[in-house]
């Protein structure tokens, strides 16, 4: 009996692996926003990019206002693509756009904004990337919509015109 245990358990393990692979074949691998939205935003304090002051989450995010937090970096190519969309969103005064500068060089980040314009009200510096992890980000660019200190929507990857319309609907 003991001798047969090893073969059976190995076969069982392989069956499990088969099942997992089989299921992952059926899933699409297009990134979908996580279902666990409606979470409270993380509490943090961090340096701000342009003013070189320190600030914290309660100062930045006030109640009863819509915020858009955008994680970006000057080295990130898709960030350049979505930048015009952020610029057009920044004209909407119902929405306050906060940037989070992810693992970037300050000089390059400023140059990026000089080139393409600055849609952000405030920019949080996330030099080592830990803040972004607390927000549950997977990479850059990523965008969160925040209302009453809660994340109500999350977009992974660059924003596009469809999402622009969706965001405009949300803040209405």
């Amino acid at each position: 009996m003991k001798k047969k245990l090893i073969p059976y358990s190995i076969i069982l393990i392989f069956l499990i692996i088969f099942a997992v692979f089989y299921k992952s074949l059926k899933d699409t691998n297009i990134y979908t926003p996580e279902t666990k939205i409606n979470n409270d935003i993380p509490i943090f304090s961090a340096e701000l990019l342009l003013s070189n002051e320190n600030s914290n989450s309660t100062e930045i995010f006030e109640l009863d206002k819509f915020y858009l937090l955008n994680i970006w970096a000057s080295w990130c190519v898709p960030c350049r693509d979505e930048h015009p969309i952020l610029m057009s969103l920044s004209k909407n005064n119902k929405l306050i756009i906060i940037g989070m500068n992810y693992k970037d060089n300050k000089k390059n980040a400023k140059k990026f904004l000089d080139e393409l314009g600055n849609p952000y009200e405030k920019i949080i510096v996330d030099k080592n990337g830990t803040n972004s992890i607390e927000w549950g980000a997977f990479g850059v660019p990523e965008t969160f919509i925040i209302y009453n200190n809660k994340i109500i929507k999350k977009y992974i990857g660059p924003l596009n015109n469809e999402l622009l319309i969706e965001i405009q609907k949300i803040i209405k």
Partner: protein
Amino acid sequence: MIYSVTGHYSLILGLCVGLALVYFSIRNFRNSNQLDTKILTFSFLQLFFVLVSFISLIISFIISDFSNETVFNNSHTTKPLFYKISGTWGNHEGSLLLWLLVLTIFIFIFILRTNNQPIKYKILTVGFQQVIIIGFFLFLIQTSNPFNYLFPVPDEGLGLNPILQDPALAIHPPILYLGYVGSSIIFSSALAATTLKIVSTSWAIHIKKWVLISWIFLTLGILLGSIWAYYELGWGGFWFWDPVENVSLMPWLALTTLLHCILVLERKEILTSWVIILSIATFTLSMCGTFLVRSGILNSVHTFANDPERGLFILVFLFALIFLSLFIFFFFHQTSKNNSSNFFWLSKETSILVNNWFMMYFLSVVLIGTVYPIFLDVISSQKISVGPPFYHKLIAPFLIPFLFAMAIGPRLKWIRSDLKDKIYLISLLIISILISFFIVKNFNTNILINTILISSALYLFFITLRDFFSKKYKNFAQNTAHFGFSLLILSILFNNLFSSEIITNLKVGETYDNSKTKIVFESINQKKEKNYKSIIANFNITNSEGINNNLSPELRIYNQPNITTSEADIKTTLMKDKFIVINLVQNQDYFNVRYQVKPFMLWIWLSVIMISLGGLVSFLQKRI
């Protein structure tokens, strides 16, 4: 048109021959006084049909026959002839046809060249191999037929992905496939030998050649892919721990371990279970790689098309093979009495066993890093990606004892040994520690671990270097490979430690200047080629020693498909590479410039070539 028809029907004929071969093998196996000549004839016939089919596909590509769907999807009339031909295997269907071609070539050579083994074993290996070949035939004809007909016939094709239009990449797949497919021969023959209970010294000597062949090709295949990634993807790295790179590294690790076990088995009948399991693992890992890459579970440049049906076929086929081999292993294999437990602690056997466990550890790290995200996604629908830090942290510390074992192990004798010239070994150790300390001291990063890592690699380096000149030490092949490995680790470490990078945005005529490097963006030229337009930027770079270099990176805007690629300009010298790449900044006249100085790049490539050279020497060597 005619070529597509020819190709298609010869594929079907090849499949029929495969079925006939299975029948002949079974008949011959029952009554096995001598090898049925039909087996050889039919194997040749099968090879012939696959070859005809492959050549038809190449011709369809050359004459740009867009009635063929594969040609339409992957070629274009303006493409240079060289890339028309290499485009044949630069896509899913064609690459599988190439795979099939190599499979049939290898089994044919196997039948021809295997002379001093039992007839039954030969027949059984052919049988198992035909199961694999038939599986691939079905896969090809069912889900990825390269000869699908298109009507109405389009005037122009869609073009080959520009980043695949590269000489290194034209030969990377064939070389890698030779390695992968070679492992299929090892797989079938290990299964055959297990069934017949002839896993023995003489079998080991026979299979060693095949292990070496696939190992050499696999090593070179990985190297070519890495070189390509270095200058074409424009990130300036040579290994990214991308899942697709990992799936080629895993069979390599398994195969390397197998090679070492075979070296033991050809002298003593021990480690038989290791050999069988590793033979199975190497091939199933190769197949698993094909599955992961082709099914679209992992996304990368290697993912040709996301078709779940294909993924399902490979998955079922892969697991059928795994269960078949598990069944054979547990049912037929009996571990011999003189098992691995009673080795003397200081002997070559023990050191190879130590090597095995280290390799298995590295293999599991890579395996977990690659597969775990998929599991996590399925089980908890969380998306994570495992990056280089995971691998570096888990692998680097274990490299240290591994390197020491690599230095000491080969000096030990079989069965029982004691270390001679201890003073010499210890003094070399001290020298290596001192040297590496002086190298690392100037850098305030992680002195301890870097010093130990470099000194262990240096230690192996010195010992193998000295053994080249020592007369009493004869194993040239092993020494070359180990020396190459120490050089590889050293180059990688130095490359990591001493690389520097400047990223900036520049306009034509602007100058970037920090205290060490001055980059002058001198001018821009435009050029028009047959299948792309290119923008060539000219930079003049002066470093702190006053050495002046002109570098001209390029942006290529391909017409079919319309994709922009950046071609890095790399100035390679013996000690360091200067690497510059530009990117467009949208709607601006700025260019994003990335300049890197990467020491010892050339040595990384050279050392891998040296490692495979060690394999080649061993392959050509007559057994003493």
